[in-house]
């Protein structure tokens, strides 16, 4: 029995040591970056290229308020050299709890490895009154700015600055990659602006206020939300009023994402509005596995919906 125990123990520790060594060696050559959302992971990849190994925590289909606090994220955060995040309290419901146990001081708020991409972003919907009577408001403003490709250029710049801050020896590479990526984005922005011409002036309804930046960029007009207040499910009265509003305003699209399709379908059947499901996190399917592909898919889908 003792022999069995000692053999089992030595096997356990051998496996433990091997996995430790393996996980160390695999990433030894690259900068280990962890991004909270797939779109951020892709932009980090474009700026860091072969110098970085990027992982995304969320898959892109999750509701930003419902990303599970999965302990399997902890080892990734523990090994990370840098953490790339949306900021503006977007990850407030799940990231701080994980950082609490990740034992990695490098990526804690305020440390060099904590790359908050919201720096310098012109934020929309900054609340005048921060009070939970207004629902689950974001005190620092709407965090879904990645849906605006022009603002994404600032995100890319923030990531390059953050990577350079941590790895100044690669500054030239990051700057070169950033320049190339911004040029590519500019090229795409030109195309999207032409492609999105039919969206200009289109009135729409969202489920949760996720689409304001996209609407701002392409001239769409938000006329209402399914939620009573951000994060608060609608009451029957609110739904009746919303259906009336949709008819009066002649709203053409209802955009929802990680929410339950039941209410959008019900509203559509009563008002005739067209329902479109799009995710505000990107990366959840092959058509959206890079930032550019995600925005392209989003714009294309919206244009097709109003055509």
């Amino acid at each position, binding site marked *: 029995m003792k022999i069995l125990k000692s053999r089992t123990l030595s096997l356990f520790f051998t496996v*433990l040591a091997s996995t430790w060594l393996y996980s160390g060696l695999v990433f030894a050559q690259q900068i280990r970056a962890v991004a909270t959302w797939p779109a951020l992971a892709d932009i980090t990849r474009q700026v860091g290229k072969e110098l970085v190994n990027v992982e995304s925590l969320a898959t892109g289909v*999750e509701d930003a308020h419902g990303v599970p606090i999965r*302990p399997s994220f902890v080892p990734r955060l523990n090994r990370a050299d840098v953490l790339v995040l949306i900021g503006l309290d977007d990850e407030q419901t799940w990231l701080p*709890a994980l950082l609490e*146990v990740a034992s990695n*001081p490098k990526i*804690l708020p305020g440390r060099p490895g904590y790359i908050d991409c919201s720096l310098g*972003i012109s934020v929309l919907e900054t609340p005048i009154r921060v009070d*939970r009577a207004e629902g*689950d408001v974001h005190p620092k403003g709407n965090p879904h700015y990645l849906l605006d490709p022009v603002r994404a250029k600032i995100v890319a710049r923030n990531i390059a600055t953050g990577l350079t801050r941590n790895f100044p020896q690669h500054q030239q590479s990051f700057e070169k990659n950033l320049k190339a990526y911004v040029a590519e984005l500019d090229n795409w922005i030109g195309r999207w602006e032409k492609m999105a011409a039919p969206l200009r002036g289109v009135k729409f309804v969202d489920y949760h206020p996720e689409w304001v930046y996209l609407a701002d960029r392409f001239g769409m007009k938000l006329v209402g939300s399914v939620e009573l207040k951000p994060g608060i499910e609608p009451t029957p009265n609110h739904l009746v009023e919303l259906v009336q509003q949709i008819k009066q305003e002649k709203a053409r699209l209802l955009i929802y994402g990680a929410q339950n399709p039941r209410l959008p379908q019900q509203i559509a059947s009563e008002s005739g509005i067209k329902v479109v499901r799009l995710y505000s996190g990107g990366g959840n399917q092959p058509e959206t596995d890079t930032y550019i592909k995600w925005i392209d898919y989003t714009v294309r889908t919206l244009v097709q919906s109003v055509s």
Partner: protein
Amino acid sequence: MMNIFFGRKFFDVISFGLLLLLMAPRLSFAQASEMESLRALMKDMQQQLQKALSRIDQLEKEKAADSAKLGQVEKSVQAVQSAPSILNPAIGLVLDGTIEKLGTAGGNFNFRAAELGLAASVDPYARMYAFFTGSNQGFEVEEAAAITTSLPYNLTAKGGRFFADFGRFPKFHIHELPFVNEPLSIDRMVGGESQADGAEVSYLFPTPFFLRATFGGYNKIGADNEQVDNLKPRAGSRFTYLGRLHTYFDLTDNHSIDLGTSLAYTPSVRLTGDASGGDRILGGVDLTYRYQPLASTVYQGFTWGSEFYNNSQRFPFDIEVPNEDDPSILETQTVGKRRRSYGGYSYAELKLNRNWSTGFLFDYAPIVDNPGQRTLSYSPYLTWYLSEFNRLRFQYSYLSNNFKADKAEKGNQFFVQWTTVIGAHTHGFVTR
């Protein structure tokens, strides 16, 4: 004929032909020069366009840099403006109350807790949090602890009064539980919430999967554990020492398993009447399965969680022994005897939609000093989340005892619980 040949018409034809011959090169020359000037114009325009594009690019960069600077300036201004309060900790208040009917004992409005929470960073090396609870039983510092944030080698240390890392639900504040009351098995075997005065060190294994170990030393474990005096100094053998190992696996994107094992060891516990005393071993295994469909985590989900505990320690008992002088007379004598008890709970909860969830709790709770006596409880419950910060819960419990229990601790029990939160409120990773 000759006249005709050399006449006016002939001359006109010849003249027109000559004119054409003379004009042709001039026309092609004009076209070529026009083309060239067009080319030059195009080139010039291209250059101007290029310049304009570069300028736009430069302006955009400047704009981005300006807005970044502006953002920083705004932040600095805000920081300066709110400097007196900006360093204040995050503050939250939870109010938890029930309307309850307990067996045949009757009903009651039960003001269970008003819990004030504070949390902030201490410095670059530590953070601190505290929960002060006022209830109908008085006012208490439920937790007040400092935690390191920058220790090397994946270590984290914690000191103060806090809920020791024993099991899963023993670490939960009661209002955070998925049902109204703490399972009786936790209450009787752990001694309520795993509150402890002491210190803990946690180590995160550098493995690709989550594996965390905790070691701790405390005066005692259990908010309601009255076997040990929390205030008296004691020998090293009278402290309680804890070890816990916790791991987690994603079975798929939507299914996961949490598994933990805990052991709290007190080398010497001496209860009144048992002079020799002995060690106390409190063990626990916790298992939680979760189904969380990523695309609809706020609408759907299923959790099954169970914990099993065993407690082994000596308790004093009164026994009747024959008198040495006259064996016909029986005398009462107190002796210590080791008792082993086993208990635990199992619950399952289904999320019906964003606002509603329902579940069922089964609990097996032995009396630790008399394990033959036990209480079985069955509790279906329904929870209504009006919002993330406002919750109503309805619960029915049936308590079955195999001993004579107090009127309030048997039979049918009904609860309506209302829990509300203001401000910043979180118990962090442990209550995930």
